[in-house]
């Protein structure tokens, strides 16, 4: 008999890990800097999901605080990177 906890450990977590690996392939390959920034942003977004599933497995809602902070930081890093891209383009 499959409990909910086993379902999370053996089905959901592998799917999320597989998608993290795929995103990391794009992060390594990405021809331009912008591709890497998007891959990084998506990596952090999936990380928020992983933390949510982990808080379900551990049965402890404290981990959701970490997810909230991570969701805010991801936005800031993307804004900073795009600002940098525009500035670099204007300089040369």
């Amino acid at each position, binding site marked *: 008999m499959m409990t*909910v906890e086993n*379902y*999370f450990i053996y*089905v*959901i977590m592998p*799917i*999320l890990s*597989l*998608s*993290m690996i*795929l*995103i990391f*392939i*794009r992060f390594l390959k990405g021809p*331009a800097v*912008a*591709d890497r*920034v*998007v*891959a990084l*942003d*998506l990596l952090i*977004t*999936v990380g*928020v*999901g992983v933390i*949510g*599933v982990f*808080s*379900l497995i551990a049965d402890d*809602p404290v981990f*959701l*605080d970490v*997810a*909230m902070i991570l*969701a*805010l930081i*991801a*936005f800031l890093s*993307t*804004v900073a*990177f*795009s*600002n940098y*891209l*525009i500035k*670099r*383009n204007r300089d040369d």
Partner: protein
Amino acid sequence: MTDILIMILSTVGAIFVLISSIGIVRMPDFYTRLSITIKAATLGIGCILTAAAIHFAEFSTTTKVLAIVFFLFITSPVAAFLIARSAYISGIKLWKRSVVDELQDKYDNKNEIPVNPCKEEGEE
């Protein structure tokens, strides 16, 4: 009953995340990749966190989850807009099978895509 609901929601969320990650590897150019990934991932994370809120069923946890989903839904379009604009200005080209590019006359992006193949509709 609650268990089945949690399972369905988290499975749907995980599948959306998987689709967006396959999309970011497979899609041909930067703009199509961006427009697939950001939204599918946001929807998937929303489903997973909703499953967490249903599992805990507490007032404080539900508020936290609502705050996270709200942040994601507000910030991810803004981030996508910023990175797409700076990518276009810094000269990342569109896919060669794109149909039309009407932004070309504002910034010179050096695409080989026609500016306006469809006839401009008359001034009404």
